[in-house]
């Protein structure tokens, strides 16, 4: 699982760099929503990316700030589904 851990975080950070932050790498614990890093629509795009990349389904009720508040939180959600 350790490698899977690293993979999820790296993939999410890579996606954020490419699609949201204009190249800036985002620390794993940086608040994404509170700081207005990501808009809600970008979060929708991220969910599509996660579902495609990891073959998971994010349920409607899981699509919230608790699960999408930071790279760490998103990775935890992805891992719990991929496990």
């Amino acid at each position: 699982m350790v490698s899977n851990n690293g993979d999820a975080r790296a993939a999410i950070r890579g996606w954020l760099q490419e699609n949201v932050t204009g190249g800036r790498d985002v620390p794993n614990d940086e608040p994404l929503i509170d700081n207005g890093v990501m808009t809600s629509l970008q979060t929708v795009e991220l969910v599509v990316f996660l579902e495609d990349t990891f073959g998971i389904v994010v349920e409607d009720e899981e699509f919230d700030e608790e699960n999408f508040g930071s790279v760490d939180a998103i990775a935890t959600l992805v891992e719990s589904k991929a496990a």
Partner: protein
Amino acid sequence: MRIRPEFTLHDLLYNAVARDPQKTAVVDGDDVQYTYEDLERQSGSLGAALSEAGVGKGDRVGVYVEKSWEAIVAMLAASRIGAAYVNVNPLFKAPQVEYLAGDCDIRVMIGDTPKLEELKPETLQTAFYRGVQPEGQAARSYTDVAEAMKGGGLKEDRNVSESDLGTILYTSGSTGMPKGVATSQRNVVVGAQIVSTYLKNTSEDRILSALPLNFDAGMSQFTTSLRVGATLYLLRSRLPGDLLKALRRHEITGVTGVPPLWALLIRGARSLRENPLTHLRYLANTGGRIPQANLDELRNLLEPAGTKIYLMYGLTEAFRSTYLAPEEIHRSSPEQGNCIGKAIPNTEIMVITKEGQEAAPGEPGELVHRGPTVAMGYWGNEEATKRAYRPNPLAPPELLDVERVVYSGDTVKRDEEGYLYFLGREDAMIKNQGYRLSPEEVENLLLGSGLVHEACAFGVENPAVGQDVIAVISLRNGSEEGAVDRVREYVIENGPPYMVPKEILVRDDLPKTGSGKIDRKGISSAYSNG
């Protein structure tokens, strides 16, 4: 029980307290509840502390906190001492806040500590902070807002009239920086009366506040809820999971939002079909047209469970203007066009041609709003005020120039039955995620990076968000490696997310018009034509 006539925002508070002091006024987060009595007591304490800090009648009090109990208390505290509250978009970054604080001379800013710490030294005279004591010198003096809300209350409210300035609502202007729409106590109160009338709000309602409070339509959930003594549920998140959970957990009866919010709600289609929102009495849209496919889907998902859908249209300069009643919703369709309904109660909507005459049915003209929500004008901007706030063109000449109406800048037509249809706008304003945004503001932000020589921003239709912001720039030092990434990074750090261009394209040189200005129209149509 003594019910007062409704002149000021705090009259609405006293009436709610008189009817039921123990009724829950606000729910902040999942379970933190406050009664109307709490709202009266804490707004009195905060009002006294603001007075003590030197806030005089007519002074401006900034509210730069995340949507929260404190933000609600602050608006009423300011109202009770005859000050005007200025709700600042929590997504604003330091440059926008510094501009706004200077533009309307904020006397006291009530802010979240991390946000205050971002500001330049001496941006503010006094700050009331939420959180730990801020580091740095953004303000000359600091007060803990939590302490201020616990202190001794006001002996009595100041003498406030409906003609006093109630709030300033900042909105993007078609040129330059955001403009403050000076809104009177009367505008605020009448706005609450009108909206609560057509949405048929009662004290039984549980109203979701999903929009930001700095937005006229977002403030409206608070003022209408206060007026009828309902319960307001504060939702900060705009993610679909949180929205769905809030609607269910609190058995919300009324929700108002902008089109992107509904796109997110529809994502929960399966959950909505399996477990319909039976408590939701109405859904009201504002801030742009819902793409037809989304509207159809929303109707399919919500109407069978009894939810009524209102389509509203308004401009900050006159708070709210029209709405399409739920039973008429079929009038907004691809065949008939973007129907925005009829005037809100107590209001007249005129369609005025270029010649200044009332347009015939079917003939395009400018939407002109007449009624008690017409605001006082743009703060400190006489020229812009004279352009938008003009004498009523249809008044009898004997009335001279006493009544001012708002020219919206929107082109509409009226059908034989009196229904209004939105046709377009003349200026280059961009509508992104429910925000009205001027291209110049985006261009100024890009130029502020110091890397950009010339910038041109414009909107490109995208039904999911309204319009995407696109920027074409030329660089100061030619095509430098990684320059666009650095520009993008600068923009993200110094502007709210909705101002960040979806695409930034680099050209050696930007096309100009005959008069030497950057040819925004030409660049925008060249982009759209690939």
